């Protein structure tokens, strides 16, 4: 089954760790006719020859799917399913009537292709790429159109596949994610599950690029805000921090945001199916709020030398997509059936809620009145609900880890930002702000004293997102100590800032180690490749 593919290597694997992005992007973008079967022969030379023979054995020995020609992956969701069936024939659940197994696509196509070209080389690439085709945007259709343009003969099989394909499947049920994955970030595959993409080789870079990479931007941009506050807050002026640190960090954040966004946008364009699966993942969906939060932080931390006042229109521009996203997600919590809160509540949901407070903070600092109050109200109501739900640890809730995990630091995020937002709305750090600030502080300390229980977790990029609560708590402490200046409060704010900086530095070192030494910064993203088997009792 899958071990047959062990001997087939993808062109990317060799270059995967070193410079994945340029290779793939080069391959993709450099060919205006983006036909992977033309790309394939170019890099085909790197494929070891034994792969060719294996390829033939694969294509011949794989049983043809029973239900006839599957149509092309116009709906990539179906392709995913088909992939699973094609490769996991022996263990797969009986195919439902609707989706046709995509295995046919590989099986029927490479063979005629082989006969057309008379060479095995393109077929390997085609086979390999076809596996990832299911995750590509309009992959089959685009390729077919382009290959039709070039008069390839496989168009017949493709067209009949397309016609028989059943289009339109509804959302990936959330139960699949809970059944197939485990762990606090729902990243680890359960032993009984299989994935639709080959596990033993490195996938294309874009498929390995999770949305939680925006966490890095979150971490760094919140640091920029923190250093700006350190330099400008009245209570920390005695430290004489220069604004240069803020400037440097801010420009680094801008660069990071630009880089991460462009890579992820490329992923959206090229691998729309993978992005959809991330959106339906109960943990990853919250990271879709991260880009907006990052942009808000950037606006908050803009160095005075770059801009002293920002246009009000910017706030509306940033908050409108955020509003639509939260209308969708909160609506699902309350009114949806599958994704209701009692089922999907997890600490990462805080990312969905904290954005309201960050938006309120920015708006109020710009001088707006009604808009910030709106978002504060919405955020407060939903934060209360989320807080209670998470504290209850409902039996229907399967994602809360029993042990401590860095994700719990997200609890500190919302109250600390809310206290600052309320201070800006009211004009001073009044009782409401102080109450929320003390709540944040208490949560921080209750996690800090348990720090020895945080251990033994696999590093992931999402950890960057968990640093921003610490940074926010530090910023809130600085605001508080500016209002209530005493040695104790100033010491507290300095200590919290130091802790935040140290954490970020440690995280930076770890990231660099993983990126360049261990070369597993972007491991295969198992979470998006789970198969879509209908859950049978024995599979649970």
């Amino acid at each position, binding site marked *: 089954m899958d071990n047959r593919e062990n001997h087939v290597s993808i062109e990317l694997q060799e270059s995967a760790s070193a410079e994945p992005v340029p290779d793939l992007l080069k391959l993709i973008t450099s060919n205006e006719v983006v036909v992977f079967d033309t790309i394939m022969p170019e890099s085909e030379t790197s494929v070891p020859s034994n792969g060719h023979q294996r390829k033939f054995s694969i294509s011949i020995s794989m049983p043809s799917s029973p239900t006839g020609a599957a149509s092309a992956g116009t709906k990539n969701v179906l392709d995913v399913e088909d992939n699973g069936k094609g490769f996991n024939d022996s263990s797969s659940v009986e195919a439902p009537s609707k989706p046709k197994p995509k295995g046919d696509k590989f099986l029927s196509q490479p063979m005629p292709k082989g006969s057309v070209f008379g060479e095995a080389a393109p077929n390997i690439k085609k086979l390999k790429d076809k596996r990832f085709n299911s995750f590509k945007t309009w992959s089959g259709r685009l390729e077919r159109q382009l290959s039709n343009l070039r008069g390839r003969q496989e168009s017949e099989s493709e067209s009949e596949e397309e016609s028989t394909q059943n289009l339109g499947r509804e959302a990936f049920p959330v139960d699949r994610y809970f059944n197939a994955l485990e762990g606090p970030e729902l990243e680890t595959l359960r032993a009984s599950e299989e994935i639709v993409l080959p596990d033993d080789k490195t996938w294309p870079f874009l498929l390995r690029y999770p949305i939680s990479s925006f966490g890095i931007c979150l971490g760094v941009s919140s640091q920029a805000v923190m250093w700006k506050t350190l330099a400008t807050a009245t209570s920390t002026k005695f430290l004489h921090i220069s604004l240069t640190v803020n400037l440097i960090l801010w420009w680094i954040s801008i660069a990071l945001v630009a880089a991460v966004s462009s890579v992820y946008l490329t992923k959206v364009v090229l691998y729309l199916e993978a992005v959809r699966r991330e959106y339906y993942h109960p943990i990853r969906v919250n990271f879709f709020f991260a880009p907006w939060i990052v942009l808000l932080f950037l606006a908050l931390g803009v160095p005075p030398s770059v801009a002293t006042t920002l246009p009000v229109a910017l706030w509306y521009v940033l908050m409108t997509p955020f509003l639509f996203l939260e209308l969708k997600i909160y*609506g699902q919590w309350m*009114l949806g059936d599958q994704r209701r*809160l009692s089922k999907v*509540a997890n600490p990462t949901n805080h990312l969905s809620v904290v954005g309201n407070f960050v938006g309120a903070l920015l708006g109020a600092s710009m001088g707006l009145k009604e808009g910030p109050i*709106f978002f504060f*109200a919405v955020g407060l109501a939903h934060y209360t609900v989320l807080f209670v*739900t998470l504290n209850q640890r409902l039996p229907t809730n399967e994602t809360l880890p029993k042990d401590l995990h860095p994700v719990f630091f997200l609890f500190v995020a919302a109250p600390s930002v809310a206290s600052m937002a309320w201070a800006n709305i*009211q004009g001073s750090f009044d009782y409401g702000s102080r109450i929320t600030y003390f709540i944040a502080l208490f949560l921080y300390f209750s996690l800090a004293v348990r720090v020895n229980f945080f251990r033994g977790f696999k590093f992931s990029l999402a950890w960057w997102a968990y640093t921003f609560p610490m940074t926010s708590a530090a910023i809130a402490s600085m605001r508080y100590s500016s209002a209530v200046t005493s040695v104790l409060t100033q010491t507290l704010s300095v200590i919290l800032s130091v802790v935040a900086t140290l954490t970020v530095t440690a995280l930076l070192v770890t990231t660099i180690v993983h990126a360049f030494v261990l070369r597993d910064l972007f491991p295969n993203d198992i979470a998006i490749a789970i198969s879509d088997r209908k859950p049978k009792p024995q599979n649970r």
Partner: protein
Amino acid sequence: MALTIISMASLRSETQIVPVNSPQASSFTTTVQSSLSAVFPSRIKHSLSSILTKFHAGYFRISLSLGGQALLWKTLIGPTHDKSTLRHVVHMFHPTAFLLLWCFALFILSLLSLLYILRCFFYFKMVKAEFLHHVGVNYLFAPWISWLLLLQSAPFVAPKTTSYLVLWWFFAVPVVALDVKIYGHWFTKGKKFLSTVANPTSQISVIGNLVGAQAAASMGWKECAVCLFSLGMVHYLVLLVTLYQRFSGSDRLPAMLRPVFFLFFAAPSVASLAWESITGAFDTASKMLFFLSLFLFTSLVFRPALFKRSMRRFNVAWWAYSFPLTILALASTEYAEEVKGSIAHILMFLLLSLSVLVSLGLTIFTLLNTRMLLPDNDPISGLYHLPIVSP
């Protein structure tokens, strides 16, 4: 001819009543009917008993909506600081038209109250079944809320008079009594109990407290108002969390009752108005409640698929759309008065028109379809005939 038609109709409906009732209720019914026959001619008796058996507290949604509309128009034609053109236009709503509206609302409410009193008197077991049902019990607040709304919008009863005070006490005490009973259930029987019975109509109890608080504040009784307000808000908080979690999924509410989801944004709107009555101005807390209500409204409006099944057949649950919209429009009026921006006034105009259109549409639709109002196999009243009644 007409009499025979009526008698045939009532006979037909009567034969349909019997299988629905439990044996005890039917024996009770026969004794009731025998007592009724002493009072009324049998045909009228048949139709009356058929009406009474099919009637339930959910019909007070109609009076709730009308009372809400009356309050809305009383506020709109009343004195205001709002200098905008929209308010001027609305101010031209003739006082006589408002009086007519109020009288109509009073008439409907009196009729419904009379019917319900008769039902209590003659079919007490059914009322008890309603009380024990997790949806029906909340609608027992609806009559009192309607009376409180009418009291607040009364054109001839000024808030600081004795008659107002007496009436307020008369309507508020049952609300508090129901509170004690129902919230006590939540509290003493443990959270598990609430999580199994909680459904969107539970917010009606919260609305009851808040409307009572608003009425008290307009009397000048600040302490009473704050007491009822805090009672309502605390339970609203608990309820909001529980409903959001949807621990038991969507199976607590039949699809026909989906319009009651509009109550999600009714409760914060009423809270916003109540807080405004208490503090005297539409301050930040009221604004926050108004915004929350606006957000929930937008959330629901973007999901029309939720309501498709309930819109297939006309039933009294459709009236559940009207009251929340009216209250939201009222809150937006107060907001526009406070904020004085053009966006606020546009919002007010939109919500006003929506609430008026919906209320008017529902009234006309109901008047044209009175037969459908008390259907023979109403799924909602059928709920109350489930074997919950214990001997």
